[in-house]
């Protein structure tokens, strides 16, 4: 299909009037009609009901409209980006990240964006996912990397990057470090490092473990991000709840939790319909194109 055909259809879907659409698109009405007919032939169905009184979208037309809008918008961004029309501006990349997602994971993508898009100014904000979503809706963030793909409202575009599993992090000398995987039932009467925020990843996992492993799981000490949590485990204040994608220092061992195995999707989210900066657009493309390693391999 041609960019022009699709653009005409989007205008027509907004105006629902052939005459006014032809005027706005600066083409003749017969040319507009032919263009729409060719698009309909390609899509394999009518996009519009041409009633005498008014033009209306068919169900197919309504279904295709957001798909067309997305691809036209993406093509426009690509065109601007490749031609570097906003080269003189400093392309901003404002990234929001869950405090329980290890930042080093994103470093290769960030490095490539900063190298390829000259003048990129990068800012990272770490905060609760709720706060980050709110911040994004207010226009203060371009991209969000988080866990909870399921809770994003419709206004967000959301892509799953990879799936990572919950691990338990124990000091090397600990008895559990000898196992290749740890079952919930082995954790009765263990002390854990919790999270200062009740909805954070470690607290969700601990609540589940408390239900599984009879009793005695306590978490008197709490961290507010993944690095803090690792430091508290290293200091001997409790066992850690982590993810297989976290880089773990050599003094600690990360073992997958089994019975139950818990998985988390790591998602990339942006605000739908917003034109991203060239740097943000490059980040999104690189993140979606690449192979992610869902597990950190300890040397």
């Amino acid at each position, binding site marked *: 299909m041609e960019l022009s055909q699709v653009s005409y259809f989007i205008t027509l879907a907004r105006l629902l009037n052939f005459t006014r659409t032809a005027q706005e698109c600066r083409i003749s009405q017969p040319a507009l009609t032919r263009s729409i007919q060719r698009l309909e032939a390609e899509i394999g169905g009518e996009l519009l009901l041409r009633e005498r009184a008014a033009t209306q979208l068919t169900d197919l037309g309504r279904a295709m409209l957001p798909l067309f809008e*997305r691809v036209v918008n993406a093509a426009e961004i690509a065109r601007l980006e*490749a031609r570097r029309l906003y080269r003189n501006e400093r392309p901003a990349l404002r990234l929001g990240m869950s405090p329980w997602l290890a930042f080093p994971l994103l470093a290769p993508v960030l490095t490539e964006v900063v190298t390829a898009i000259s003048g990129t100014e990068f800012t990272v904000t770490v905060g609760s996912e709720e706060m980050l979503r709110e911040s994004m809706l207010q226009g203060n963030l371009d991209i969000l990397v988080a866990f909870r793909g399921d809770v994003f409202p419709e206004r967000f575009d959301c892509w799953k990057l990879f799936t990572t599993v919950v691990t338990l992090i124990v000091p090397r000398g600990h008895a559990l470090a000898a196992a290749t995987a740890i079952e919930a039932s082995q954790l009765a009467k263990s002390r854990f490092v919790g999270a200062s925020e009740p909805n954070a990843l470690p607290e969700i996992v601990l609540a589940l473990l408390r239900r599984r492993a009879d009793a005695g799981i306590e978490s008197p000490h709490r961290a507010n991000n993944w690095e803090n949590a690792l430091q508290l485990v290293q200091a001997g204040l409790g066992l850690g709840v982590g993810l297989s994608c976290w880089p773990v220092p050599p003094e600690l061992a990360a073992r997958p939790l089994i019975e139950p195995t818990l998985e988390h999707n790591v998602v990339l989210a942006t605000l739908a319909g917003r034109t991203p900066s060239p740097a943000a657009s490059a980040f999104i493309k690189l993140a979606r*194109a690449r192979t992610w390693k869902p597990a950190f391999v300890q040397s």
Partner: protein
Amino acid sequence: MRQPPGLDAGASLGHNRVLPRDTRGHLSCKPVDFYSSAIPRMAATRISSDMPSETVPIDAIAALTNESLQEDLAAIRSQRLTGAAAAAYEEVLLRFDQGEMLENAIKPGDPMPPFLLPNTAGQLVDSATLLSRGPLIVTFYRGGWCPYCMATLEALERLRASFECLGASLVALSPDTGGRGAQIRRRHNLQFEILTDVDSTVAFQFGVMIRLPARYRQLMSSKSVEARDWHGNPSWFIPLPSTFVVASNGAIVHTEVHVDFTNRTEPLSLPRVLSDLRVNQREGI
């Protein structure tokens, strides 16, 4: 480090066809190993444009790779084009008119729409950088799920050395995300760049994007190939298999668009196109 995939490494080019070392001395030009060098921050080796084009033995290369793609495609057709797949294929042929699709596509003389896309090494590849090295072959394939496309990419790989000797680079684009480009590059031993055309935006600008018709979408679904996983969107917008040759000034010089995805032009025509391009440029046409 990977050995530069020059003609001396001919034995490793698909189908184990050994290219002779002594086919006219000029073939000893050092081809570019695109992958082991950082793109787009490398200087390419190029043949100077004043080298007589007659010295590039296209016909010798042609003889060596003779008709192999057609045989491969025929084998896949006889094996795959049955039942639901045959019905889905018929629907594609009925839905899309070859002439109209060619009309939709950008044409010789048109400027190539610029692009900036990720490669399989996680780098962004800029079309302007590619063109600064010489002519460019841009080929669109439907996806790693399409066996006809895989056979075509393998055929292009067999000709890669001849493209490089003519100073040209080759990139293959599809909307496959999530490391799928890297997978097929490994699996099919392809040395040229595979770029992820995220959301098919570049195919759209080249005028070769279609929506896969309903029967085909059902067929894909029955094989657990879902657009939401493969492309990161549910649209099933994919490119028609197509190939464009672009002169280093960014002008399209050659276009091939295939509605019938089971039939492809033998890529042997491409070295000829590149060679003609060199002659024309030298003569200032």
